[in-house]
């Protein structure tokens, strides 16, 4: 017998979401990389803009680290997203794959 209804799919969707979040945040970090934020305006203004963008980088890094850590956690609980082996699987008999409909 398998797990609760739709738990597997939801857990897979969750893992996928964290991966996508990590990728999106990485793209944000890439946009920030090597950017020079001087000569924006007056010296005090440049100072504030530069500090804000450095802080933004820190925040994005922290958020991305969270998603990366969550991906690792999801990996450790992979059994939640995998169907439990059936007797037929264990004995090597063929089974229809997920979603395959017998006609």
């Amino acid at each position, binding site marked *: *017998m*398998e*797990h*609760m*209804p*739709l*738990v597997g*799919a*939801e*857990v*897979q*969707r*969750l893992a996928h*979401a964290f991966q996508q979040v990590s990728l*999106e*945040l990485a*793209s*944000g970090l890439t*946009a*920030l990389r090597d*950017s*020079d*934020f*001087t*000569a*924006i*305006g*007056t010296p*005090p*203004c440049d*100072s*504030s*803009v530069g*500090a*804000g*963008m450095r*802080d*933004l980088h*820190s*925040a*994005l890094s*922290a*958020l991305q680290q*969270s*998603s990366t850590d*969550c991906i*690792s*956690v*999801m990996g450790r*609980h992979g059994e*939640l997203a995998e*169907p439990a082996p059936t007797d037929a699987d264990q004995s090597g008999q063929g*089974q*229809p794959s*997920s*979603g*395959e*409909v*017998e*006609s």
Partner: protein
Amino acid sequence: MRVDLVLGFDPTPSEPQQLVVLSDVVRKVIRALVQARSELGHIGCTGSVWDGPVGAPIAALLRRYSLQMSALEESLVECLQAVDSWRDGVEERQSQVTSIVASVADLAGDPTAEDRRTRLIATAREVGVEHDRAAADLAAAFEELSGAVEQIVRADDDLAGELDRALVALTAAIDDWMAAEAPELLRTAVSLGEVAGLTTVISELVGIAALGRKPGDAAGVREIIARSPGSHRLIRALRRQWLEVAPATLPEATFSSRSSGAITDILSGRRTQTATSDSGAGFSVGGLKGSGE
């Protein structure tokens, strides 16, 4: 013509090309945050596990994560507006100064034009004061961004740790459910006597085959069930037990809502309020709702 050489100072310092870069970067980061939040918004809307007590902690931590990104995004939108406004103002002021510089240069070497030259330089200084004032507005937007970041960092969330604990609890709940229901489910499965069809139905029930389907779309599940005569008995058994596991009062987990207002509000008390304000969504059993019986 260099402004500082002609006037002796530059009243409107700013490099337009740098402003284009800054605006572009901020825009890209906002887009990344919106996309990331949208990924979280795509999950947790289908009922099923999210309606039960074991799914609620996961839904809550995802909502909190989403709110952190939302706060950052909101602050960045304000920065972008400030940068765009600054860009427009800089263009206008630098154009004024360019005109003044040309006039002052024309007067060079003319001893009778000293008064006019003085007036032009005074005008340039006034433009500079206006420039400084506008720069302070831009600086304030980025200082607010730093403040938003500080609150996010200070929150010191152990998202992964919470997720780990929630998944441990989910696994335990599944094990308990299976231990309790195994005899009846096995009896039902055996009595169905249609192994291939039953396997397909079970795949659907556990959601492995439901990936890629739109949230709430149960049509595919109904179709599968319709092709597996007798499987409704198994579904009834699953539904009956799952209804007992998942109370109706838990919130539907949608992460797409974004509250407006000050960032401080979002990150303080209103966060909890927002996190609970969607509660009361009706219970559904995901793909099982309205299926095949």
